[in-house]
């Protein structure tokens, strides 16, 4: 697999939200306003790349040599949880402006399936270090892109007259389906 393929595959074809269905709770939860969507997208980009790289290192140099692969679920969730805590403390001290921007979204990321799922997918595919890094960045960018596009559409839908039973989440899901269809069209590229 070339790098170009990983990048396009990660951002469009295997988009983590719309094609792999990971991280859908924040996708629907934070997409009602553009501001929150941007905050969530940034927080995920930040943590997903860090977590992807760190869990890969942990998996390759610790879990595999010591035959502890079956423990990876526990190990990864602990790494992600402590990483989020650490990033939160670090940002609070050194970059307060960014911390204020990300705000409540950082702690929420611990239970974001996108981060955990991407880590599992990375090690499942047996990628090397550079490819893991590129893949994580591509997934993270794909997440941000999809979330921000969706938030833009959803802000407009609020203004439209939607039949009562279809309102809110229901029309949101149908919209996500149409968005997913457009991403699906990139399948021909790789």
């Amino acid at each position, binding site marked *: 697999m070339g790098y170009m393929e990983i990048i396009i595959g990660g951002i469009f074809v295997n988009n983590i939200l*719309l*094609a*792999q*269905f*990971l*991280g*859908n*709770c924040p996708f*629907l*939860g934070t997409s009602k306003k553009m501001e929150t969507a941007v905050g969530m997208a940034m927080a995920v980009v930040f943590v997903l790349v860090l977590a992807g790289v760190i869990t890969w290192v942990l998996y390759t140099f610790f879990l595999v040599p010591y035959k502890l692969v*079956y*423990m*990876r*679920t*526990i190990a*990864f*969730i*602990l790494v992600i*949880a402590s990483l989020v805590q650490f990033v939160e403390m670090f940002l609070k001290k050194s970059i307060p402006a960014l911390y204020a921007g990300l705000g409540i979204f950082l702690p929420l990321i*611990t*239970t*974001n*399936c996108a981060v*955990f*799922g991407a880590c*599992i*997918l990375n090690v*499942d595919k047996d990628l090397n270090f550079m490819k893991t890094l590129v893949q994580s960045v591509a997934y993270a960018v794909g997440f941000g892109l999809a979330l921000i596009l969706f938030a833009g559409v959803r802000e407009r839908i609020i203004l439209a007259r939607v039949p*009562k*039973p*279809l*309102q809110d*989440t*229901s*029309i*949101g*899901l*149908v919209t*996500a*389906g*149409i968005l*997913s*269809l457009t991403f*699906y069209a990139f399948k021909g590229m790789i």
Partner: protein
Amino acid sequence: MAKTLTQEFTKGLWEEIAPFRLVLGLCPVLGVTTTIENGIGMGLATTFVLVFSNILVASLRNIIPSKVRIACFIIIIATFVVVTELLMQAFTYTLFLKLGVFIPLIVVNCIVLGRAEAFASKNSLTFSIADGLGIGIGFTLSLAALGAVRELFGANNLTIWTTPTSIIGIQEVFGTNFEPFTFMVQAPGAFVCLGLMLCLMNLVGSK
């Protein structure tokens, strides 16, 4: 407002049916429901984790310090997820392969953590078991329902369980001339289908 044991159990089946009413834990709901079989398997795996993590959280609720409770809950849940993973690898290997990444992902399923935090950490053991079972079965039913709709129109089949030698279910429900509506089993179909089912539930519920 004290509820009886039966009420705690049945609320998970309709009033608070997790994927539809609370819109939580959507990743597996959308990701695995290409067939009924996958839906049921995923639902049962989640129910298992849900019930056992509820049991442990409820029995330890007076010991766990409240400041680190979320971390403790996550470790308890992760333990049961690993147990599920190993059991499924041993007994239902083909299903385990089909569900793939979604089995370890039960760890970050908001429903499981949500029930531990909102219910099991505040209620007694028996009530927590009833709650876990109710929510779990409700989750399984909604996964199976979505899987049924998607498989019926998308592949023209209804597979309930596959054993190595035979398939339990109905093949080619609409006859051989029916052209399967493949959109339904692909990724975009999942969103649209769930959205329309939600709409249907709102319609029924509002009456």
